[in-house]
């Protein structure tokens, strides 16, 4: 039951991820991206990681909303503007994509697939346990990543603010 459910959700994830790439309209792509992230949430729920599931849902919902605004404001959505790229650009794209595929296949092969990962405790993903682990065992990486995010935020504000008065 659980395995077949996993395969069904995994199929949905890949299906919608492919639709993101293949749909011609950028707004449709964004909407398929939402569905893709929603299927990620389903994966987390199946792993009993409720907190991660709901945070994934909220954060990506908000993030994709920003992406939607970008698509509307920054892209020129005229019919002819998409799909008319030069041959050189296409070649570079194919080479880069092939490199990525080789890297992915290599890393998957390097994994020891016959060694299944067993969850130590079933309730690891609940809020209480997750908080305890984050603030004791992984305190330093957790704080460092928060500083990283803060500096990214300050940098973004600085870049957006063009006319800072000198002196």
């Amino acid at each position, binding site marked *: 039951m659980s395995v077949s459910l996993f395969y069904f959700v995994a199929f949905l994830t890949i299906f919608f991820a492919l639709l993101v790439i293949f749909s011609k309209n950028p*707004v449709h792509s964004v909407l398929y991206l939402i569905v893709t992230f929603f299927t990620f949430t389903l994966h987390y729920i199946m792993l009993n990681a*409720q907190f991660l599931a*709901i945070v994934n849902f909220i954060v990506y919902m908000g993030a994709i*909303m920003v992406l939607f*605004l970008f698509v509307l404001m920054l892209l020129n959505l005229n019919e002819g503007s998409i799909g008319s790229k030069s041959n050189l650009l296409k070649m570079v794209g194919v080479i880069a994509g092939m490199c990525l595929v080789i890297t992915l296949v290599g890393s998957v092969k390097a994994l020891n697939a016959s060694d299944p990962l067993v969850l130590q405790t079933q309730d690891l993903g609940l809020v209480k346990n997750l908080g305890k682990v984050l603030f004791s065992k992984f305190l330093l990486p957790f704080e460092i990543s928060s500083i990283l995010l803060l500096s990214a935020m300050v940098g973004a504000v600085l870049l957006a603010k063009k006319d800072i008065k000198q002196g």
Partner: protein
Amino acid sequence: MELAFIIEKFGLILVIFLVSLTIAAYSTLAERKIAGFLQDRVGPNRAGPGGMFQPLADGLKMFFKEEIIPTDSSKALFILGPSLALFTSFLGSAVIPWGQDVEIFGRQVSLQITDINVGILYIFGVVSLGVYGIMIGGWASNNKFSLMGAVRAASQSISYEIPMGLSIIALLMLTNTLSMKEIAEQQHGFNWNVFYQPVGFLIFLICSFAETNRTPFDLPECETELVGGYHTEYSGFKMGAFMFAEYLNMFLASAVMSTLYFGGYNYPGMDFVNELLGPLFGPLIGMGVLILKIFAFIFLFMWVRWTVPRFRYDQLMNLGWKILIPLAIANIVITGIVITLIDKL
């Protein structure tokens, strides 16, 4: 046992569904009556005694109107928009604890559909999903006014979700749990959270107005600038779905605020009443109290709508980013300091 559980949950879902539908329908009438009261006129009073059947008449009218789908719109998304808005506005009520456990035929029945341990975050997720209905509908209409409304709805929701989340963090530092049921239980009697978190409540209230697109934050449908905003192209039942979703969201926001800050089903002297009336009718009184609190909040929503004029767009952004977010962060810091001091003493 298993069958009884399914029947119990199914019955509860059905009741909550019907109750929220009825309340949303009669909110439309209440809104017009209150508008009339505030503007010193009568309001709708033709259909039935005192206008009681006005929502039915309005609903019928919506059904029989012609459905128009613009030729240049993307059809599927045009239909998906209002459906999504209506669908998500029902989802949130699943984690609201409507009362204490009731005893029916010697069986403990919980008056909450599900008690997931991330209840508050679930509501946040549902709220952020709700804006997608407006956004998809506004974009799919292929109309510049609708698009402007959709863009405004999206940016407004992004801006006001941040102070909303921050105001909740200060509350969570007090309650130490994300489960709605436990938060409601902690406020037993008159021990309501609003007395400990008045600033947090105020921020949450303002953000609820913004998230439900109510005046003074109804810029997505600002009719003086954008004709009708995101629903300019909509007619008939799809238009009704958008309107209904707004009233349902208002109901949900009121329920969340009552539960988080105003004690939910708790009221002073509830132990005495529970002992007097027994394990069936005691909790039902609590449920009635919760409904009364919700009505009070809905009245507040309407009162503000007919009193305060609409914000300008830059004022809206300034309020969100430059006033509410710093205020919410200061609230978190002060709450943290006070909690530490009380622990040490």
